[in-house]
């Protein structure tokens, strides 16, 4: 978090000293600051650069999945017969961190075929409504190895 604040400061300083204070210059300053922080990652003992990269990867994965899920739903809406078999699946959670569960639940809702319904009081199970629940184990596995792993890398 400190490293991120430092990165912002570098961006602002860069933009105000180098030239006109434009969004483009702030962005350039941010990228330069990021590069410097990456060079100094050992000395500053910060995992900020790798985590920021993981975060960016997570966001891109999310946008891709949102795009995909909208198409899947559109196909289901427009196909003449309802061939899907929905159901509610309990997904065991690896983490009991509130932020991670929240992010996971939000991502699950906006990705293909799944919608988070509730979290058990002891934060051990996330109940998910799935559009296609004929293979609950496969569904659990794909979420575990996909989003849950990525979120852990980005936020843990």
């Amino acid at each position, binding site marked *: 978090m400190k490293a991120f604040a430092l990165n912002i400061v570098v961006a602002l300083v860069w933009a105000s000293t180098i030239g006109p204070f434009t969004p483009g210059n702030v962005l350039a300053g941010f990228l330069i600051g990021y590069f410097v922080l990456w060079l100094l990652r050992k000395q500053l003992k910060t995992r900020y650069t790798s985590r920021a990269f993981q975060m960016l990867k997570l966001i891109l994965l999310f946008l891709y999945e949102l*795009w995909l899920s*909208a198409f899947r739903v559109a196909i289901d809406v427009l196909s003449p017969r309802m061939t899907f078999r929905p159901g*509610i699946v*309990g997904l065991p959670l690896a983490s009991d961190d509130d932020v991670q569960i929240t992010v996971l639940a*939000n991502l699950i*809702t906006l990705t293909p075929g799944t*919608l988070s319904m509730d979290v*058990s009081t002891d934060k051990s*199970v996330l109940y998910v409504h799935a*559009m296609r629940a004929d293979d609950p184990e496969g569904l659990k596995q794909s979420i575990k190895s996909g989003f849950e792993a990525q979120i852990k890398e980005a936020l843990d």
Partner: protein
Amino acid sequence: MIDLIAGIFVLSGATFCLIAAIGMVRFPDLYVRMHAATKAGTLGVGLALMAVVVFGAVSGDLGTVLRALAALLFVLLTAPIGAHLLARAAYATGVEMWHKSEVDDLRGKYDFSRDVLIGDGGATDEASEDRS
């Protein structure tokens, strides 16, 4: 050229919103309907806002771009929460699932007398046996 790109964004966004609306009518139960409303609906609104972002970026209006991006962020943050609340409230008040639904891991897991949702954890095992 920019009119064309922004127009494509608006049109495809509107198409997804229309599909979401059709899904609300066609889908068999509330829970499946939430899928249409959240996914297709969110992408529809998102694409329409992207048109605003493209327009603002080209005309150099940073304020508009930032406001559109903020709106996009809030839609992405709030749509899943709304879906979660609606689905949860529906299940808690006993809205039936479609008869072709396969599994229901939530059955018997709500304990409203203690305001608890049972997971797979040890301390609550006793309660789940009591209910079944």
